[in-house]
């Protein structure tokens, strides 16, 4: 457990010791800021169709652009860099199990992902402050963040797996970007497919639809279980990849 904590801390610190953290945070907050500006503009024009959280999370292209770009960037170096620098040799000859290494790195990346979203929690409260009629409900706000967390957890796990498959960070980032992108764009199949049964099945796997539900305040256990089990499966695969790397 102590080794896990040490690795987690080193990983989270690592983000802030390199420029990655600041670049990602800056552009992420820029995107979300623009998103907020659009929202405020719509609110003041009286053109709001759905709830505030739906505009900020579920229906916002900014949300998805941020996910698509930030996650590959924060996960690409996790394992690939260790292998490339040779520091993996130091880690795997220390008395630490392979799964501890992978899980601690995952926890570090996920913690950074949470840190990245934390400042945006202020948005809801800012709007509530200026609009005492309370267009923002606490409930949907909470569930929107829950949705972001479980979907993010799943994509970060995907990034860890991509990073374990190569020693080149750029390859890892491209791999993760492509897979997260496929998962996102496949989320539109329920809207565009001509076949009703395809539409029906695809709706169960659509992160776009899930995120819309979460931001409306709907907590469906099915997507929760889908994302949590997928996360577990991806991490299990990443651990296997790291272990098998020794056998080459």
């Amino acid at each position, binding site marked *: 457990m102590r080794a896990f904590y040490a690795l987690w801390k080193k990983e989270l610190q690592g983000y802030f*010791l390199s420029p990655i953290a600041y670049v990602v945070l800056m552009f992420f907050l820029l995107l979300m800021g623009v998103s907020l500006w659009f929202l405020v503009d719509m609110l003041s024009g009286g053109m709001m169709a759905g709830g505030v959280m739906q505009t900020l999370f579920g229906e916002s292209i900014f949300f998805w652009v941020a996910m698509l770009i930030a996650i590959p960037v924060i996960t690409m170096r996790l394992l690939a860099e260790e292998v490339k*620098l040779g*520091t993996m040799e*130091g880690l795997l*000859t220390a*008395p*630490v199990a392979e799964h501890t290494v992978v899980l601690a790195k995952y926890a570090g990346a996920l913690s950074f992902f949470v840190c990245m979203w934390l400042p945006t929690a202020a948005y809801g409260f800012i709007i509530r402050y200026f609009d005492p009629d309370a267009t923002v409900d606490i409930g949907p706000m909470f569930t929107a963040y829950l949705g972001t967390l479980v979907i993010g957890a799943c994509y970060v796990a995907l990034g860890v797996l991509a990073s374990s498959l190569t020693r080149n960070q750029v390859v890892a980032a491209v791999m993760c970007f492509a897979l997260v992108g496929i998962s996102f764009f496949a989320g539109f199949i329920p809207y565009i497919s001509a076949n009703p049964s395809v539409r029906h099945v695809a709706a169960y796997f659509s992160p776009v639809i899930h995120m819309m539900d979460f931001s409306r305040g709907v907590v469906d256990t099915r997507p929760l279980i889908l994302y949590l089990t997928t996360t577990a499966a991806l991490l299990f695969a990443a651990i296997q990849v790291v272990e098998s790397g*020794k056998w080459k």
Partner: protein
Amino acid sequence: MMVEVDHLTKCYPRKKAVDDVSFAVDSGEIVGFLGPNGAGKTTTMRMLSGYIPASGGSIRIAGIDVLRDSLAARRKIGYLPENVPLYNEMRVDEFLRFKAHLKGVPPRQCRKHVERVKELCGLTREGRRIIGHLSKGFRQRVGLADALLHSPELLILDEPTIGLDPSQIRSVRELIKELAKHHTIILSTHILPEVEITCQRVLIIHEGRIAASDTPANLRAAIQGGTRIVAELHAPREKAGPLLEQLPHVRGVKSDQREAWTHYELECATDVDLRQNVFELAVREGWKLRELSIKKTSLEDAFIRLTTGEPESREPSMDSYEV
């Protein structure tokens, strides 16, 4: 027995890197792995450290099987990999503290152990420096400090002096000798004088096999089996040659004409010094003598013979020799 290696084999797709290697290392021994590049030294050390598994055979560290009970075995080992991989963005103290936590040093003793290894490796004043800014010599020390953090019983050092300047090499060698008081050490190198100076036993490894295993002194004796007397005489060749051959213990005489002088090399049995006999002979016969010296075969000769099968060694020398 600290290390028991039994019929160890490692196969790569196109190559057998280590081929049926068996050896044992006692507690407190310093054993040197010697061999040209690509002989299988690093592969063997990686298998010992548990980083890569063997294709066949077994390794036991202090009675623990490296493959079956990997974590327990790793606790006994301090390993310095060949290229000393370190996190360049961390500070020395930060890195050592991180590694101490990772290796399960109790939190309250972390500071104590970090200070201890820093002092051992001469890093007390470098604690605040960023690893990426350190010179090669200091990086090597940080790697060594890392290997020592959890006071392992066995130290595995893969080419600990590679890429260092001569004074750094000397200080690392002295450090290794110092460490030998409390640890069992296996180190690899392709620099011959290094093992002659630091190791009690040498394993010469060649093409994945152990070509020889003995003390540096015995290896030297076993290969050459003798000493050589060099003499340069101003004497009639047809007379001097046979007379020199008649001296006791002489196995053979080689001569080489250098203008008026003749350069003789006398091959003799081990541990005899014929210089006095040669001098007396020269005095008796009225020859002039301008050089008289004794040469012992260096480990380098042994090494070259074992790894290339060359029958006759070149000029014996004590210079460092890199393959």
